[in-house]
């Protein structure tokens, strides 16, 4: 029961003559493509664009918070900047990040299919994303919106004169893009698995995307309805949320968080899938307790739907319903803990190397553990009263979303970069970037936990001077973090032309996507694969290699 894996000699690798990248040329061949791999690339370009807009907003926020008074940005501008940061990062980066790019690219190949079930809907999903993105850019260009990404009523419906309707509709449209992606994944995973690819032979990446897709399809319509109600309330005053017309503003909170809490899992579950693949590959060992990790994804998806009111513990919901939601919140933390320990145990008796994706994955383990455990602080009713709506909660969700999800996304981008482009990224500088990102992240967000316990409220353009020191630390860390994110943009672009040729399986990973050429053919497989081995079966990989006859040309 042991395997030796040595990475192949890449100096002999050649780029394949025909691949999905060079089958057709011209802008039209990209814009009208049905190929999931090309759509993934389109998505990757678009979300990178929005990531750096959202990042620029974050930079403005941190610069403004260097000093206690609101001097760099006026209060109004500051409000618009953090709103833009939130909306763009949540709806235009985090929700589509892993699923629409890496998931789109890998899931059909991982299950052994030629494409997703509905290629045209997949393309439509990208176009909807683009339309929503253009709407959002229009909002920013024509003066912005200052509701906060949570669109809280009655502030958003009655008390602001900014572009609330356009921003709300932009998120509404982006939601459909997410629904279509989820729908496509569910159908593909159910119906298009290759012969022999049973549910329990699927890579864990597919399991976590399956769980996230269910959340997308069931949760996002509720957000869409809620935003339509906000728009109608604002334009024609239907009064669903307006207390003076007999409406209930708390109803908005219930509806909004009914989506937006599961949305957290929409964002993090695909990242967890990436971590499973990366940790297994670089320890040359199957994931410890495959079934537990697979079912914990499903458990997170199911429990994730019943915890939304933990965002409302201080809002005057009944004390007894708060009890129920707190209990369920504690339960949803357990599957995450199982995953963390199973990933750690995967390292045991492995044969570990520390390529860039692995470094990002280690970063994920540490930061997500902190993010998850501070979630227990907030799920704990009495503690939540003091911590909610302060910087503690800002730090908590940035540890989960940025420390967890963004680390996982970068791990995934580096891991599958050779498969997507056929070329390697430069290892040295990318390891440096991973370390810089980790250090910058901790320096940025750890002080915010302390600020939060001291009571500094979130969304403040100006703050009492005694909070300045910790804010300066946080801003200093943000500048380090910024470098950590700019570096990959530069060297990954560089590697498109100058990177070493990767060859089909540079990591000696077991997934089906690594058994085909890099970059893959448009139809992925020359012939439909027949799957006879379980996921992460390194012995099978060893035997296949041994039987392979080296061919020339």
């Amino acid at each position, binding site marked *: 029961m*042991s*395997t*030796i894996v040595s990475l192949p000699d890449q100096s002999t690798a050649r780029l394949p003559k025909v691949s999905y990248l060079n089958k057709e040329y011209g802008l039209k061949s990209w814009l009208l493509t049905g190929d999931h791999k090309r759509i993934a690339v389109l998505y990757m370009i678009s979300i990178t664009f929005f990531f750096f807009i959202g990042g620029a907003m974050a930079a403005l926020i941190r610069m403004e918070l260097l000093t206690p008074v609101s001097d760099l940005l006026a*209060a109004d501008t500051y*409000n618009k900047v953090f709103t833009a940061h939130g909306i763009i990062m949540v709806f235009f980066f985090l929700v589509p990040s892993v699923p629409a790019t890496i998931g789109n690219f890998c899931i059909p190949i991982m299950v052994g299919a030629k494409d997703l079930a509905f290629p045209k809907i997949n393309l439509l999903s990208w176009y909807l994303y683009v339309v929503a993105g253009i709407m959002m850019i229009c909002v920013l260009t024509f003066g912005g919106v*200052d509701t906060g990404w949570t669109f*809280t009523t*009655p*502030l958003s419906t009655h008390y602001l004169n900014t572009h609330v309707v356009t921003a709300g509709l932009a998120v509404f449209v982006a939601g459909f893009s997410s629904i279509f992606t989820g729908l496509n994944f569910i159908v593909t995973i159910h119906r298009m698995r290759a012969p022999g690819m049973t549910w329990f032979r699927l890579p864990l990446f597919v399991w976590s995307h399956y769980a996230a897709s269910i959340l997308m399809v069931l949760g996002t319509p509720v957000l869409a309805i809620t935003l339509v109600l906000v728009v109608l309330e604002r334009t024609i005053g239907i009064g669903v949320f307006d207390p*003076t017309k007999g409406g209930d*503003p708390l109803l908005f909170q219930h509806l909004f968080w009914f989506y937006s809490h599961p949305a957290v899992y929409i964002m993090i579950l695909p990242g967890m899938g990436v971590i499973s693949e990366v940790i297994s590959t670089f*320890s*040359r*060992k199957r994931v*410890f307790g495959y*079934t537990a990790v697979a079912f914990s994804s499903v458990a997170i998806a199911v429990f994730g739907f019943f915890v939304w009111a933990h965002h409302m513990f*201080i809002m*005057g919901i009944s*004390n007894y319903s708060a*009890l129920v939601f707190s209990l369920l919140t*504690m*339960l949803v*933390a*357990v599957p995450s803990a*199982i995953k963390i*320990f*199973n990933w*750690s145990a995967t*390292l*045991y*008796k*492995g*044969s570990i*190397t520390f390529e860039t994706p692995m470094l990002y994955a*280690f970063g994920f*383990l540490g930061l997500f*553990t902190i993010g998850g*455990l*501070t979630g227990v*602080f907030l*799920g*704990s*009713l*009495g*503690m*939540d*009263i003091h911590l*909610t*709506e*302060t910087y503690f909660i800002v730090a908590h969700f940035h540890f989960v979303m940025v420390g967890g999800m963004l680390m996982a996304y970068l791990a995934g981008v580096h891991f599958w970069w050779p498969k997507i482009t056929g070329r390697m990224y430069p290892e040295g500088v990318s390891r440096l970037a991973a370390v810089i990102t980790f250090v910058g992240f901790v320096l940025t967000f750890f002080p915010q936990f302390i600020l939060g*316990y*001291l*009571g500094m*409220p979130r*969304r*403040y353009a*100006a703050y*009492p001077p*005694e909070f300045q020191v910790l804010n*300066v630390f946080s801003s200093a860390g943000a500048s380090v973090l910024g470098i950590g994110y700019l570096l990959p943009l530069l060297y990954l672009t560089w590697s498109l032309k100058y990177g070493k040729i990767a060859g089909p399986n540079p990591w000696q990973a077991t997934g089906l996507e690594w058994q085909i050429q890099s970059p893959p053919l448009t139809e992925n497989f020359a012939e439909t694969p027949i799957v006879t081995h379980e996921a992460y079966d390194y012995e099978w990989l060893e035997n296949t290699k041994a039987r392979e006859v080296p061919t020339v040309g």
Partner: protein
Amino acid sequence: MQHFISPVLWQFLIKWLTNFAIFPPEASTIAPYADALYFFLILISVVGLAAVAALVVTFSIRYRQERNPVATQIEGSTLLEATWTIIPLILFMICFVWGALLYFRIYSPPANAMNIYVVGKQWMWKAEHPGGQHEINALHVPIGRPIQLTLISQDVFHSFSVPAFRVKREVIPGRYNTVWFEATTPGKYHLFCTQYCGTLHSQMIGWVYAMTPEDYEAWAAGSTSGHSLAQNGERLFASLGCNSCHNSTPNAHGPNLAHVYGAHVQLKDGQFVTADDAFLRDTILNPTLHEVAGYAPIMPTYQGQVSEEGLIDLVEYIRQLDSQYRIEQTIDNSDQQPVQTGAAPPGTSAPTMTPGTVKP
């Protein structure tokens, strides 16, 4: 030393070394309970993080490829997985029970609490003491006495947060929320709005002044407007014409309001509801919401005619309306002509009365 580094950085370091705080002051009876839970949560977080870090670091060193070129394939272990399912579950359940106990402590005001009304509006806090002290962005409270705040917003969501007391409550339009605390240490503490409420959200801040009972008495005597909330409410009651129906005569169109506060009122559909602050506010603004048994739903809505402060005055007036006699007094004062009622005790003609002084 000062000459070698930039003066800005020097100032910054001095400020940090002299002012660095990790915890806000503990200034209420709740704060020590909240901090105890916080320390417990930190403890389990540190232990959990250390466990993960220890596993990752140890395995990374022991099983790195140079030392362990051959990986040993392991399926998993039900026993181990059960262990790291059950231990976190137990710890999280402790956090749940502990947190729930704290939550009920913070959100269950004691019966003898002194009530202060707080109205949030873009972008200020107005505190209304029953004795007629009105404050903006400040709240004076005595130490050693439970204080209940009845909070309502006039416009958008706000949130009333006093970190030194470890209490916070959302302030919502259209509904009274309550929170209570008992300050323990005299001092001046931050009061924040923590729910984003529009442009000047970050300026919706103020101070809570916790004072010794003697200081508080002096302050209360010195800053009263001269009219208690109930007196303001009495005037409003008369000027809105409430007494034309709620006049407690045998053929009145509206129910008698004496002793109504806290009573169980029977509705048309047979249900009983407690006439609390929220009930009174709702029935003034939206009379058809709760139709009281035995009366025709003819009361007009006062939506948009009375400010939140006015509603608080009315509620406070009705709360103190402990006899029929007081209503008759109101009618006398507003109409300026005595109403003939048979059972009026001596003293009916007294021109002005404050609720506290009347002993019918």
